[in-house]
């Protein structure tokens, strides 16, 4: 029964995960800062001016990473929500809840930066094209998950309801990803694809990948910070949390 030789399951308990998450935060915060600085340097000083788009194309160094993170965080959230629903593990549902606002933030940033790129390049802030619309649906899904969690008083019931929505909504992620192939969209095709490789200059690609890693590391920091808050706020752990809060100041 106990196949867990390394004791990983110990960290499935929120009270054990709380200090672990706290210790991990600086190990993700430091690379997040360094990678951001390197990414900005590559994006603004190494990558050359695009011959068609001029300097405006530099928006993609945050637009594409934000869009990737918006989808990746959703997948992580759905997996945690699914595990929470099936195995009734509290920490999984808490992690799902902790991922939602950061995912929503990156979704908003993908839409915002896309809009600011679209205005000078397409001549419009917004079109109801498949890629843009499905990304907007992603934002609504995140907001729906957060609103559902907030609107139900009993945290266990809130976890189940929002977990179900998160799980059903995951269908939207492949729709976003493949939207540029399935439909005739104004949005350009994939910047990077397993079959086609990259159609960009190496320095441009590097800037984009480094910024993606930076956003990823940042997401760990934000999600670990938030899951620690969620654990402290749950009534169930109030005695444990009081002792811990006393030690931590």
């Amino acid at each position, binding site marked *: 029964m106990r196949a867990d030789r390394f004791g990983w399951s110990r960290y499935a308990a929120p009270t054990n995960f709380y200090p672990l998450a706290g210790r991990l935060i600086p190990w993700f915060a430091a690379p997040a800062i360094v990678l951001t600085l390197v990414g900005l340097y590559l994006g603004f000083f190494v990558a050359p001016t695009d011959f068609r788009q*001029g300097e405006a194309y530099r928006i993609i160094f945050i637009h594409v990473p934000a869009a990737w993170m918006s989808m990746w965080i959703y997948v992580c959230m759905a997996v945690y929500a699914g595990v929470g629903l099936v195995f009734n593990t509290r920490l999984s549902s808490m992690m799902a809840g902790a991922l939602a606002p950061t995912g929503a933030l990156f979704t908003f940033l993908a839409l915002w930066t896309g809009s600011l790129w679209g205005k*000078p390049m397409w001549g419009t802030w917004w079109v109801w094209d498949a890629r843009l619309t499905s990304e907007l649906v992603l934002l609504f899904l995140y907001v729906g998950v957060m609103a559902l969690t907030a609107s139900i008083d009993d945290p266990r019931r809130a976890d189940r309801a929002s977990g179900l929505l998160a799980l059903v909504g995951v269908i939207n992620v492949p729709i976003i990803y493949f939207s540029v192939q399935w439909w005739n969209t104004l949005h350009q095709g994939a910047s990077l694809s397993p079959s086609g490789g990259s159609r960009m200059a190496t320095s441009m690609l590097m800037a984009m990948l480094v910024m993606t890693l930076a956003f990823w590391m940042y997401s760990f*920091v934000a999600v670990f910070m938030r899951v620690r808050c969620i654990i402290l706020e749950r009534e169930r752990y*109030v005695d444990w949390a009081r002792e811990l*809060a006393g030690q931590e100041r």
Partner: protein
Amino acid sequence: MTWTEFWNMGGYAPYVWGSYGVTALLLAAEVAQLLSRKRAAHRRLREIGKMEVG
């Protein structure tokens, strides 16, 4: 390239800096919000502690 040229971004300054600026602002705001949420959680736990003693 001079700094003036750099900030001008070939005439696309509002779009480029509007993107980077809002991104930086929102990420910083998220961290600030999480720090204040943590402080609020600790404050609440201290208050619960006092109620039980008092």
